[in-house]
């Protein structure tokens, strides 16, 4: 179909006129990274879902807010997502527990690699600890870790996404790493210390 050959601003025009196919092309292209970012920042699948929905509703209702001459649609959507996430974090500092995430079924997937159940359990525990530690970081350091380490963006890309200089991103990442290391050492050493104390 001809619509699919259009570039993003063209697709957006079709979508705003009510073309479902054009909208779905845009949605399916951008929703996953936005959702992951929101999920990693908020730690709540519910909040991430809400954020993604709000972002695309804004695109449907107020498409004029996206100006192609100012940048790519992806960058615009990320900016809106980031604002929503920050508002969410200001409103309610991490209320949702990790148990809720597990119960929801959206976050965890059973790994498909050929590991023994013991290894799988260990791996899951480590991942959970990292996730917990990341979520406990202050928002600005967490964002730097999410973008540069989890989303594997370059410093330039992360700086562009956050609207700050590369030096700021590097500095935040440095602080974030240090905090993360300290938290994980504390988490991983606690059982060892408890075990040593019991003996």
């Amino acid at each position: 179909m001809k619509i699919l050959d259009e570039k993003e601003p063209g697709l957006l025009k079709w979508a705003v006129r009510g073309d479902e196919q054009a909208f779905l092309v845009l949605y399916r292209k951008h929703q996953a990274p936005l959702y992951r970012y929101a999920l990693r920042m908020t730690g709540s699948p519910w909040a991430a879902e809400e954020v993604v929905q709000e972002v695309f509703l804004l695109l449907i209702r107020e498409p004029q807010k996206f100006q192609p001459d100012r940048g790519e649609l992806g960058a615009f959507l990320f900016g809106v997502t980031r604002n929503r996430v920050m508002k969410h974090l200001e409103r309610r500092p991490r209320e949702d527990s990790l148990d809720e995430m597990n119960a929801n079924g959206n976050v965890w997937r059973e790994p498909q690699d050929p590991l023994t159940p013991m290894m799988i359990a260990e791996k899951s525990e480590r991942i959970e600890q990292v996730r917990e530690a990341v979520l406990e970081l202050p928002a600005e350091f967490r964002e730097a870790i999410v973008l540069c380490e989890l989303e594997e963006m370059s410093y330039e890309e992360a700086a562009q996404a956050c609207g700050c200089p590369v030096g700021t991103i590097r500095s935040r990442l440095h602080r974030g790493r240090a905090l993360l290391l300290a938290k994980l050492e504390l988490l991983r050493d606690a059982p060892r210390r408890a075990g040593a104390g019991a003996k």
Partner: protein
Amino acid sequence: MKKVIKLMSCEQFELLGLDMDRPDAQPEEVAAAGEHAANCARCFAMLESWRELKQDLRLLHEHTLLESAPTRVEMRLKQELRTRRETRVPRSAVAIATWALATAAALAAAIGWMHWREGGSNHTDAATLQVAAVARDNAEPTLDASLLTADYDSGEFTQLPGSMPTASADESVLQARVQRGALVQFGLPVAPEQAAEWVDVDFLVAEDGQPLAVRLHQDASSESVTQ
């Protein structure tokens, strides 16, 4: 231009050393950080801890790589899109209807104006024709004219054409001084040369204001005799 770091301090390593595994790291920085870590046990331990953490972060990244918004979000957005599309159709219909109504109103006004103009000229023509016809009739005295003449003489009201004699007590007499030509409007014959003359007239007016009969005053009767 980037400063080439040959020997890295512990502070510099803390800032730059952990980036040595990144694909976008500067080769000079990587070499300097590697050299520092090889000679500093504290920084080496930190690098090892970071590499361990980096592995865990990679695991987390891989586990969440395929995560995406639930399908229900897509469904809700599609629904929103459909709702907007459906509401947009009536809006356009309303706009079309508004334009159609406005056009119809303008058309009706134009036609009405044209009719009014035609009607006005026809009315004038009709009055002229009527006066002329009456004048023609007056040239040869008719029954109406003789009746009117007789009525003047008797001082009785002459029934106006198209009105029925009634015995109602609500009738009233209206006295007026009019130009003789105005009597044409009531169906009375008037000679064109006398149309400008002023005469005193009594109208017998029904309850609804409609004139039923007319009577010329006795003193004017001699002048009002149609010819």
